[in-house]
């Protein structure tokens, strides 16, 4: 079987999913200031309930404590970080340097992203870089790992060992290219995929069927992206304001159908039900739980979904 996961790395997340267990990840958004303790507090809330913790890289183009620095903190706490890297802010020189820096601290997971346009963020007047795009960043990390070479061709004595991930949005347009775009990222070397938040279950299953029909689920591990709704307001915001998000009317109605003080509970319940349902969908190999500024709910979701305790890897 031709699978990108014949390239083994020290990543615990890879080992768990390669062994056939569901992988569980969550994310931690660093603060908009220099307080590293916040990263540690967030990691402590979720660390024992997930296999690895994504650290966002200046998410939505808002300046935050750097992903690499936060990943190092998390690593030093004994948890496994996933270094998110966007190609918006650094060129191939800066990114390769940070990949080497990460590897030198024993960071073995990366999520390669292009990144939101800076016009969404807090520095809309900034120049963007986009020397590479996400697919080319995947190629770069793979080359560094498998060929032990930088993009320049320079051969390294010690190469970074990265389990390479990327994002996929099954709900963006045009829908018909969403499977081929994933195929392209897998052809570039992606080993795990974290999807956009899933609310439209039918559309996700349709996409997943396209993925399975092409055997892509055998080449890379697909992790379903889950974000619990905190309130009716959040559901409406996600539906109307967030690019590439598909929130069906039924989700809005369900949130609207309960009193305000019960909406958070309902959101968690809905998230757990979705995970249970997606566990049965062919090709789904894990869950990426993005509880935005709601990290304390991750343990409840993981336990409620029957994904706790997490497998131990020696």
């Amino acid at each position, binding site marked *: 079987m031709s699978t990108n996961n014949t390239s083994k790395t020290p990543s615990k997340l890879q080992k768990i999913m390669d062994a056939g267990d569901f992988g569980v990840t969550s994310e931690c958004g660093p603060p908009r200031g220099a307080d590293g303790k916040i990263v540690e507090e967030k990691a402590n809330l979720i660390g024992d309930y997930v296999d690895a913790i994504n650290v966002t890289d200046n998410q939505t183009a808002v300046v935050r404590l750097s992903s690499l620095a936060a990943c190092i903190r998390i690593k030093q706490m004994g948890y496994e970080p996933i270094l998110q890297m966007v190609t918006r802010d650094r060129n191939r020189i800066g990114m390769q340097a940070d990949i080497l820096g990460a590897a030198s601290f024993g960071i073995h997971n990366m999520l390669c992203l292009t990144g939101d346009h800076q016009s969404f963020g807090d520095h809309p007047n900034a120049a963007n870089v986009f020397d590479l795009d996400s697919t*080319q960043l995947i*190629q770069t990390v793979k080359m560094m790992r498998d060929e032990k070479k930088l*993009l320049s061709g320079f051969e390294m004595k010690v190469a970074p060992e990265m389990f390479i991930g990327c994002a996929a949005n099954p709900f963006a347009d045009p829908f018909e290219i969403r499977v081929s775009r994933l195929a392209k990222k897998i*052809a570039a070397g992606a080993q795990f995929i974290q999807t956009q938040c899933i609310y439209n279950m039918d559309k996700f299953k349709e996409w997943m069927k396209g993925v399975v029909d092409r055997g892509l689920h055998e080449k890379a591990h697909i992790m379903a992206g889950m974000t619990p709704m905190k309130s009716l307001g959040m559901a409406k915001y996600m539906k109307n304001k967030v690019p590439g998000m598909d929130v069906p009317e039924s989700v809005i109605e369900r949130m609207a159908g309960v009193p305000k003080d019960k909406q958070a509970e309902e959101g968690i319940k809905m998230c757990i039900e979705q995970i249970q349902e997606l566990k049965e969908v062919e090709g789904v190999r894990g869950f990426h739980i993005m509880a935005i500024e709601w990290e304390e709910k991750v343990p409840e979701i993981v336990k409620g979904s029957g994904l706790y305790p997490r497998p131990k890897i020696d």
Partner: protein
Amino acid sequence: MIIAKPKPIEEIIDLVKDLKSVLVAGCDGCVTVCEAGGMKEAQVLASALRMYFRQQGKDTKVEETSLTRQCDRPYIAQLDDKIEKYDAVVSLACGAGVQFLAERFTKKPIFPGVNTCFIGVTEEKGEWTERCQACGDCILATTGGICPIARCSKRMSNGPCGGSSSGKCEISKETACGWHLIYERLKELGQLDRFEKPNDPKNWATSRDGGPRKIIKEVSQA
């Protein structure tokens, strides 16, 4: 062509308000076609400046002209015997023209009267859109004749990104998703196989990243 946009009149007034004589120099090239800096626009700007000076009670002399091109020496040489009459020139050419005047007339301030914006096309009367970023290494043969560097907000080589929605870019509903266009065109050309092949990192050395560029025409051996 090169597309430019007139600078706000206040900005130009601020540059020339203390002068005694000003020449507004249009260019008959690209900026004429995009209605930003030809003879007509030179006349309009010169009239506006004359009106301003009159209102201020000043007798500043403002005259206008337009050169065939400001990016060629023989044409800018036509100003050689007039330039002394003026304290400064407001050039309505693109940035190349402004600089070429400044290089020739080293003792005269040359002010830009337009903002040079992009290489583009006329969509319809009064509307111009970008097509090319002059990267110096054209890839249009592989992208269905649509440039992802100029037309994708993230100049992706392997798009579209997850922000593409109903054929529009994440930055604005007014902006078409370049990669959506590329996909549709490749489909029409029966070349969708190109779409799934990852494009390697681009060599930007031929772009502005390689420093100011220069071309010397190679002598034909034929």
